[in-house]
């Protein structure tokens, strides 16, 4: 049973997706419990896999028993197992949150929603676990196509937003496919481990370098790195609430993970050291994303749109961490930390923002006067996450920034330290505006329809949000306390970095 876990974690949501559609079509009350069952299987197997990996080291799973360079291989090392846990747990919380929110927003599409939701989980977990370049492409498209469909089932402007996402996203996927093609021409292999062994002699080759550029740009589109982000704000804003939560956390983070996996596992550090100027350029692009994302966020009055631009800034943080990784001894620690931290913070914020929409249909920040007293717990979750993101110690944002500054100082990138400070100041501006309107300004008459006094969202939506809000500080303490340091050490050494966590 334990040996089959890497397959189960992908197959379980796939079957769940099918059964949800089949049974949910007749009785829509069956859809949620079945989907929840599927996600729970993922969470349990992800934890079991992490446990096995920590005790026994890397797991290699051969699909159908075919030996690696020919067959498709699933390969689970420390980072993979860690990401499996993160994505399945975030998916579980998002599913919990989605139940009530979908019942209100899309009452006639419940069954379709859960079916697509499970298919999306299949794609995401598959992307994380696979060790085959082409298999990754197929699962990338499974995840992307389901995200297009999930965005499109939202409100009035959603289909247009989704079509833009589809066109730009497919260009990204095609670029990735061209990159795979170049690597295949150069080496004749598609297995990541095999490529890692075959490539070193060809690091100087233009084919391999072009492949790297194509793959990087393809993924930069998928993760919405700054100049290529134009699809992202609309998609996040017009998607149904539960979908915004899931896409901004699980989907975005999985694509970043896939980028890290390909850069550091297929091309490896030695290749990066040969093309180091390119990584300097990547750092600059990331710095631009951090600043521009925050500036755009300040201009927004729609809370969901503001959070979407804030995500662009945070993708900048992660990419900066990746860009600084080769030239500092911290390695991938800041990048991995911020992937987790941002999933927690942004998940909490989108849950709170969509809670405001759920209860009072409020999305414009200027209407929020008095909301802090009407929905105290949802607002508390929002503020905890906002403080954590700005960088109040010991929140998770503080930890990321601390490690990033250490890495930047070590890499002698003093400019990036300044950029981190500026982007923090900009973050304070746009989050403070929300807090000020919610708590400090007096409530206007007739803003809130319905009964007076506290009027909270249902517990199944409130608890995941509050949990993530509290987690954004607890996790900060956990990072400092060093509980995860052995894991981070294993991740770094696995990619050939020095190893100080």
């Amino acid at each position, binding site marked *: 049973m334990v040996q089959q876990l890497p397959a189960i974690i992908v197959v379980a949501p796939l079957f769940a997706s099918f059964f949800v559609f089949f049974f949910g079509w007749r009785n829509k009350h069956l859809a949620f419990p079945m989907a929840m069952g599927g996600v729970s299987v993922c969470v349990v197997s992800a934890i079991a896999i992490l446990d096995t990996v920590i005790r026994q080291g890397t797991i290699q799973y051969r699909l159908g028993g075919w030996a690696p360079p020919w067959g498709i291989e699933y390969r689970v090392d420390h980072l993979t197992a860690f990401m499996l846990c993160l994505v399945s747990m975030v998916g579980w919380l998002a599913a919990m949150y989605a139940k009530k929110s979908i019942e209100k927003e899309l009452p006639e599409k419940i069954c379709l929603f859960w079916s697509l939701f499970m298919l999306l989980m299949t794609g995401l977990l598959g992307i994380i676990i696979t060790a085959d370049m082409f298999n990754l492409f197929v699962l990338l498209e499974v995840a992307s196509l389901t995200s*297009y469909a999930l965005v*499109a089932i939202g409100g*009035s*402007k959603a*289909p*247009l937003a989704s*079509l833009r996402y589809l*066109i730009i996203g497919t260009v990204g996927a*095609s670029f990735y*496919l061209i990159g795979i093609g170049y690597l295949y021409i150069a080496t004749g292999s598609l297995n990541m481990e095999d490529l890692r062994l075959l490539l070193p002699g060809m690091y100087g080759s233009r084919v391999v370098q072009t492949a790297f550029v194509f793959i990087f740009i393809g993924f930069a589109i998928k993760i919405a790195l700054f100049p290529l982000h134009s699809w992202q704000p609309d998609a996040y804003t017009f998607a149904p609430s539960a979908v915004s939560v899931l896409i901004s956390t699980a989907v975005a983070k999985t694509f970043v993970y896939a980028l890290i996996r390909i850069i550091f596992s297929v091309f490896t550090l030695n290749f990066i050291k040969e093309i180091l100027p390119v990584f300097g350029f990547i750092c600059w692009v990331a710095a631009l994303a951090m600043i521009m994302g925050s500036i755009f966020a300040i201009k927004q009055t729609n809370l969901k749109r503001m959070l979407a631009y804030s995500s662009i800034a945070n993708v900048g943080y992660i990419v900066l961490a990746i860009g600084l990784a080769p030239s500092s001894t911290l390695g991938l620690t800041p990048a991995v930390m911020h992937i987790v931290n941002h999933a927690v913070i942004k998940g909490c914020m989108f849950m709170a923002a969509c809670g405001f929409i759920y209860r009072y249909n409020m999305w414009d920040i200027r209407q929020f006067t008095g909301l802090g007293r009407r929905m105290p717990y949802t607002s508390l979750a929002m503020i905890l996450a906002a403080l954590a993101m700005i960088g109040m110690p010991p929140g998770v944002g503080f930890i990321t920034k601390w490690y990033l500054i250490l890495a930047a100082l070590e890499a002698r990138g003093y400019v990036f330290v300044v950029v981190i400070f500026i982007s923090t100041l900009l973050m304070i501006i746009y989050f403070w505006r929300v807090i000020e309107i919610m708590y400090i300004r007096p409530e206007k008459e007739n803003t809130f329809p319905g009964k007076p006094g506290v009027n909270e969202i249902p517990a199944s939506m409130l608890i995941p949000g509050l949990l993530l809000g509290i987690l954004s500080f607890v996790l900060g303490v956990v990072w400092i306390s060093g509980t995860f340091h052995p894991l981070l050490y294993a991740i770094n050494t696995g990619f050939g970095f020095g190893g100080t966590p």
Partner: protein
Amino acid sequence: MDALLNILISKANYWLYIILMMIGLYGIMVKKNLVKKIIGLNILQTAVILFFISVGAKEKATIPIIEHGNDTVHAAVSASHYINPLPHVLMLTAIVVAVATLGVALALVIRIHQQYHTLEEEEILKRIQET
């Protein structure tokens, strides 16, 4: 001149793929009609598919089926005598992905047309601003 001609002819498949890809990207970026954008997208995907398929081809090679039978001799199989089938098989999957993408895109276009009664991007944006 001869050298240039040589480059053009010996790498004809790559030139074709690049030209098709540029046509596709041009369609996506410049055309204002949503269906034309999708056609551009499909040309781009087809370019990648053709690129992969052309990679598998070899000179003086045959289809990759090894003859087994009662009256044929089991000769040693040399890979250079056969076309590389792997890129072709990969592209079967890529074609399925492309078809699925096209299906989703056209479904979205139908939804957009029901809503705005036009597929010209500028008119749609005008209507969004009016409301």
